[in-house]
């Protein structure tokens, strides 16, 4: 009996801790948070060298990933950028960049979904998952 009360109280404490944790990110679902955690690991391996730990970029060589307008307006092109790379002149955060980004063809749609969820929610202002369906649809329409 005592044991049971004990277990119950532990569960209720855990529950309230979880409630507090999630209420801090009111708009982000558990799925989105999970995608972002997985995406961060992949980001460190594949993107951080150039784009920086905080997505800050480097000089006029590598653009930052913190331009929310760019990310929102080009949301449907992001998967293609990651998979196939990007070249030519682009404007990000009010600066012109013109360096070639190599593609990373070995990334799978789910990897790309993780990475883009991390980028768009941590550096951008998105609150939703960049889903695998979204990735597959975008990849079908790459230029």
């Amino acid at each position: 009996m005592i044991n049971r009360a004990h277990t119950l109280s532990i569960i209720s404490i855990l529950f309230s801790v979880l409630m507090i944790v999630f209420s801090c990110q009111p708009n982000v679902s558990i799925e989105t948070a999970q995608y972002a955690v997985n995406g961060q690991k992949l980001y460190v391996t594949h993107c951080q060298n150039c784009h920086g730990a905080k997505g800050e970029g480097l000089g006029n060589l590598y653009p930052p990933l913190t331009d929310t307008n760019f990310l929102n307006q080009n949301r449907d092109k992001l998967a293609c950028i990651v998979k196939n790379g990007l070249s030519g002149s682009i404007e990000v955060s009010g600066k012109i960049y013109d360096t070639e980004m190599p593609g990373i063809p070995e990334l799978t749609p789910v990897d790309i979904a993780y990475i883009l969820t991390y980028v768009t929610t941590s550096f951008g202002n998105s609150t939703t998952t960049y889903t695998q369906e979204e990735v597959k649809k975008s990849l079908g329409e790459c230029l």
Partner: protein
Amino acid sequence: MRNNLLCAFGLAIAFLASGCSDSKTNKRLPHIGNHSTTEKVVDGKTVIDTNYYQVPEFRFLNQDSVYISSADFADKIYITNFFFTHCPSICPTMQRNLLQVYEKYKDDNRVAFLSHSIDFKYDSPSVLKSYADKLGVTNQQWQFVTGEKKDIYGIADHYYVYTKEDESAPGGYDHQGYLVLIDGQRHIRGAYDGTNDEQVKQLFEDLAILLEENK
């Protein structure tokens, strides 16, 4: 009693202060590489001279298509590394960190920077120039050089940095991200992994120590 305490306190402070200044002036960086010694007789006494390992003289083409040589670095402390402009792996991080050192010592003529491109096929002077501009290098203090394969890879060996043309490596070249610290006599005084924040912090500290030594 009170005087005694004050006195002890004062002594302790003096002790601590001397301890601090001692450790600061006494700290010297090692000389890396093999030494040899030569004995000679001066005023009837035998003295031993240490000949530290010295990086050989060099001459390379820089980002302005001008030949620069080791003479341009004489009596300067410089930090050198090996990279290539299309490097997708460690170079951007290494250059981001070296850029911090450059920004701290910008316009301090005692310090210089020398980046060698190991992509002798693609990184022509104009490619290096554009890279330097985009990185944010605005003066001659940081040189970006290219040269014949055997010369660049040869000098890398002399700085103890591994470089190799390797199709299986990201971007086609395999190399280490060391930032090598060289004194005004071309002696190697330190090597730091340019992708490791702790080691880059150490480079900042060691560079300050080396500048003290040269005073």
